[in-house]
């Protein structure tokens, strides 16, 4: 294969309008969800996001019954269903002995079951695989606009409230005492999560959307000790993973959604093993004897002698 034909082979996907839209949509959703993911991971709400993603189904089904498969209707339906589950979970937890996660988990399972039942009554066909993994190659211009808008809303609000959000994530009690409106920020974060999930429904489905929320941010978390780097790192990993996953699926002729997730999982696995600070390999190879504190004590006693003993001494 000559270099020119290799390039034209690689550029082949760009020739199709549906592929251009798919790439753009993937890039937008990957970047936005990767950015938002940091907040979800640090609040330890990965499983809550999972619950919410499944609770969109009855809303989507009701929307499909009454207004068909219009993007606006689906988004509104999904949004209402997820908010009902999130708020309902809070209410159950406050008014009974049940803890948050039990309440939300119970509600989302019920919601999912209701959704599956309701789908039977829909005039248009709603495919469950489609709900879970979307149909990236069938992205319309309308869907793309929704992605633009969601990316804009999410990234702007997270950027604007980055500092109070950081304080809240780090220690909500102290943030509250220092006058930050913690409740509002937490609710806003929840709303953005739901918006992100619903808006990417048509393109990538809830499961892939969730994967793009969790996996890139988790990868970045293993790689850095800096909050801003984790934010932007998650976004970039999400973007790279989804775009290259889409390419891979095109050439290997496998479904794009699972392909993207598996690629992101590969990134996470690599970070898990090889991360310079927190990797499995690093912790196995680290010299046990020179514990941080004993090293420090040594340092204290040997103020003017900077020669550290090596393992050979």
């Amino acid at each position, binding site marked *: 294969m000559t270099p020119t034909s290799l390039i034209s082979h690689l550029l082949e996907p760009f020739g199709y309008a549906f592929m251009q839209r798919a790439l753009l949509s993937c890039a937008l959703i990957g970047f936005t969800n990767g950015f938002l993911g940091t907040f979800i991971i640090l609040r330890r709400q990965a499983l809550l996001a999972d619950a919410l993603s499944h609770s969109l189904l009855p809303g989507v089904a009701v929307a499909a019954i009454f207004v068909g498969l219009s993007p606006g209707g689906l988004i509104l339906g999904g949004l209402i269903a997820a908010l009902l589950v999130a708020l309902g979970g809070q209410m159950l937890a406050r008014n009974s002995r049940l803890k948050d996660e039990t309440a939300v988990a119970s509600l989302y399972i019920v919601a999912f079951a209701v959704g599956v039942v309701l789908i039977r009554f829909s005039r248009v066909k709603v495919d469950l695989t489609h709900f879970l993994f979307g149909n990236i190659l069938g992205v319309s211009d309308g869907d793309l606009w929704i992605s633009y808008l969601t990316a804009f809303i999410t990234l702007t609000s997270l950027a*604007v409230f980055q500092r109070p959000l950081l304080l809240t994530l*780090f220690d909500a009690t102290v943030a509250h*005492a220092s006058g930050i409106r913690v409740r509002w920020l937490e609710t806003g974060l929840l709303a953005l999560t739901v918006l992100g999930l619903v808006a990417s429904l048509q393109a990538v489905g809830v499961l892939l959307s969730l994967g793009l929320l969790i996996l890139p941010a988790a990868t970045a978390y293993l790689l850095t000790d*800096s*909050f801003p780097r*984790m934010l932007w790192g998650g976004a970039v990993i999400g973007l790279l993973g989804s775009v290259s996953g889409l390419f891979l699926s095109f050439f290997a002729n496998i479904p794009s959604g699972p392909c993207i997730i598996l690629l992101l999982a590969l990134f996470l696995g690599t970070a898990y093993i090889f991360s310079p600070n927190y990797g499995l390999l690093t912790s196995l190879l680290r010299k046990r004897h020179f514990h941080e504190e004993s090293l420090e004590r040594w340092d204290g006693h040997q103020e003017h002698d900077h020669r550290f003993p090596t393992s050979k001494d």
Partner: protein
Amino acid sequence: MIAPLLKVEDLTVCYHRVPAIHHLNLTLEAGHCVGIFGPNGAGKSTLLKTIAGLLTPETGGVRIGGKRVEERASRIAYLPQRESVDWDFPVTVEGLVEMGRYHQVGLFGNFSIGDREAVRKALELFKLEPFAKRQIKALSGGQQQRAFLARAWAQAADLYLLDEPFAGLDRTSSKALAEALQTLKQHGKLILVSHHALSEASNLFDSAILLNGELVSIGSIQEALSPLHLECAYGTAIYSGEHHHPGV
């Protein structure tokens, strides 16, 4: 007349309608390091949390420099208990201290030279410069406490509230923390520390508060922790049934 830095008036705080502190009154001035003593359940943590604005009083209230707590939120530094902090959070010591400047800097503002200087000064004051770039988990217990004190300093707090900060610290770390508290006192701050060991009181603090659900005594160490007062707080045990032998 200048209002006292801390004034607590007729303070009652309840958990589920059960009072933990009854009608407490006290006034404290700047430039003191005050130990709070008392048996378990005497309301030490409750008092600190209420002053920090984390609990809502049933009666009475707290005034900081004559103002309500909410108006003075940024001048109060409450040091969280160790277990309530996520030590894996992606933040370095320097990043933690920078958080203290956020309310001055605002949502968008860049860190000015003054802000940078305040962060540097805080790191220097609490001897944290060598660890500035470390993630907060890679510190010893005492260094972690000092990192939070440095954040409070950068925040320009006047009132420092510490809940059992010496618990679980080794001797070297305790000494460094005690020195840090003295530094704060010399800079005219007011420091309130809940503490369990009476024996160390005179080394660490210049005055003491003795609690047992209500105020037993307040004043200099000798006065507040006199045998008579200690008998009142620990002996006639309302809360510690073990030592209570009615009729014996």
